[in-house]
């Protein structure tokens, strides 16, 4: 019995050292800071030769809507990590200001705007999908979506397309 446990441990070790081959990243938030981590991870995956699928759902859909994708903002209210008192964060223009500052820093690091980033990921061979439930809930139309969206899919399709991938929810 003890050997069985040892063998199991060895099997786990072999598995752990296996390189990541595919990732399936879900982006569910529509704030600037909610969208970028997923995009950076998807692009980073492609740069490493890892297959990447990005699935946008709920407010994350804003990142693939032509009219909204480059107008995402940082939340200054309900975001304790900002270190800004809620009442101060609620002052008109505060979110735009914080967004402006963050975009400046990102530009310095060569992080592209959302539309360009999505284009980069698609050009790099990543696949972009939108969520059917959110698409219907927000009364969206095909023409609202950026050109890189391959398809609007159901959660079932998503799992099918994620076969063999690590699923990352952001």
């Amino acid at each position, binding site marked *: 019995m003890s050997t069985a446990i040892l063998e199991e441990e060895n099997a786990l070790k072999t598995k752990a050292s296996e390189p990541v081959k595919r990732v399936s990243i879900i982006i569910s938030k529509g704030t600037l800071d909610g969208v970028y981590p997923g995009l*950076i991870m998807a*692009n*980073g995956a*492609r*740069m*490493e*030769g890892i297959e990447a699928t990005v699935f946008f759902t709920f407010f994350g859909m804003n990142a693939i809507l032509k009219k909204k994708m480059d107008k995402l903002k940082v939340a200054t209210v309900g975001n304790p990590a900002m270190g800004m008192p809620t009442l101060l964060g609620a002052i008109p223009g505060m979110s735009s200001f914080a967004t402006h500052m963050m975009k400046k820093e990102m530009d310095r*690091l*060569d*992080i*592209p705007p959302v539309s*360009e980033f999505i*284009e*980069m990921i698609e*050009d*790099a*061979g990543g696949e972009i999908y939108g969520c059917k439930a959110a698409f219907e809930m927000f009364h969206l139309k095909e023409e609202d979506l950026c050109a890189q969206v391959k398809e609007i899919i159901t959660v079932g399709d998503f799992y099918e397309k994620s076969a063999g991938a690590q699923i990352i929810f952001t």
Partner: protein
Amino acid sequence: MKEREVAGKVVAFDDENFMVNYKDWDLDVATALAEEEGLQSLNDRHFTVLEFLRRTYEEKGTGPTIRRLTKESGVPTKELYALFPGAPAKKAARIAGIPKPKGCI
């Protein structure tokens, strides 16, 4: 760091197989490294990328981000991935004889 012979020259590499001194690089070394990376031959477009990487490294002490590379070298993202299949940034840096790219983008 370890030294080995590449295209008749003794060249030093770091633990991840990137060249330690980019000045040891020449066309023969590039061709030999490309072969190690699975590229049978290098064409003009490969060299556009390699020269851009080397120039940026020489000027700034670090290789360009993939975004700068595609925007300024005139080699678009799709082509870059086709030229250096797999992990383009790393592969190109290795063949260009510059250190491993450090950025996340």
